[in-house]
């Protein structure tokens, strides 16, 4: 009886200890698996560079105006 009890404890102990580890937090593994997330990142990078390009254009226009007005 005693042997069986220690046997059971020895078997169940790791399960009890590592029970918390098995609580799996769901992350977007599928997204990374298919590799399509890179498409999203590329799209975002393109949009961001587009906005920055827009800022640069405005910046240059203002610089040009500043020069013209300062000449007067």
């Amino acid at each position, binding site marked *: 009886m005693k042997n069986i009890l220690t046997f059971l404890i020895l078997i169940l102990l790791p399960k009890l200890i590592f029970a918390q580890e098995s*609580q799996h*937090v769901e*992350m977007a593994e599928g997204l990374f698996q298919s590799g399509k997330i890179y498409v999203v*990142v590329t799209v975002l*990078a393109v949009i961001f560079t587009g906005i*920055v390009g827009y800022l640069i254009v405005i*910046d240059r226009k*203002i610089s040009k105006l*500043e020069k013209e*007005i300062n000449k007067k």
Partner: protein
Amino acid sequence: MESGTQNKTNKIQNVSPSGAGASKYWWKILAVILLLYTIIKGFLGPVPAQPILHESIRNLYFHVPMWFSMMVILFVSVWHSIKYLSKSTIESDIVATQAAHTGMLLGALGLITGSIWAKYTWGAWWVADTKLNGAAITMLIYLAYFVLRGSIDEEQKRARIAAVYNIFAYVMLIVFLMILPRMSDSLHPGNGGNPGFNKYDLDSNMRTVFYPAVLGWILLATWIFTLRVRLEKLKRKTLLND
């Protein structure tokens, strides 16, 4: 912030456009590089698996820097308001107003992104939380700043009263965003009995993205703000010429 020296460098630049040019916009390039890095590594880099948050933890790179850069830009605003009160140069008034405008843009983006994040983690678009309500009240205080400006016609008077109000507004911002949320329990990380911000910020992987992100967003905000200041100055100059 640098508008005083900017005028001087503008004049130098007119003399030698090739030399002074590159030293003037290096920080804009830095902003773009940092933010591209944030977008790429922010989405692809490893993040700790946290319950409730899941992948939305990546919002830290985008939502939080909005507030950080808002506070920096609004500090620039109040700094120039104080400068106006001591020196009464209208340029300080222009800088203070445009900085406040840019700060409001960032604050609005911070509120909207926070609301979206809250919906998918706390389950509601808005909860009556000290941090959230504090942020909303801060926005209203700054909206009143623009209402106040709009209601006074005389330029000197408007600048002076607005400068005094701006100091009050920044003090209120610190009270509502930094002090009151820490004095009570809050769902929002970093406040009261919920110091969650440290928990995921301590992750060294996230730090390598978060800090560059904050700097990048602050620099981008500064860029937008300097554009606004230059445009406003041009407007006034052409009005004077007419």
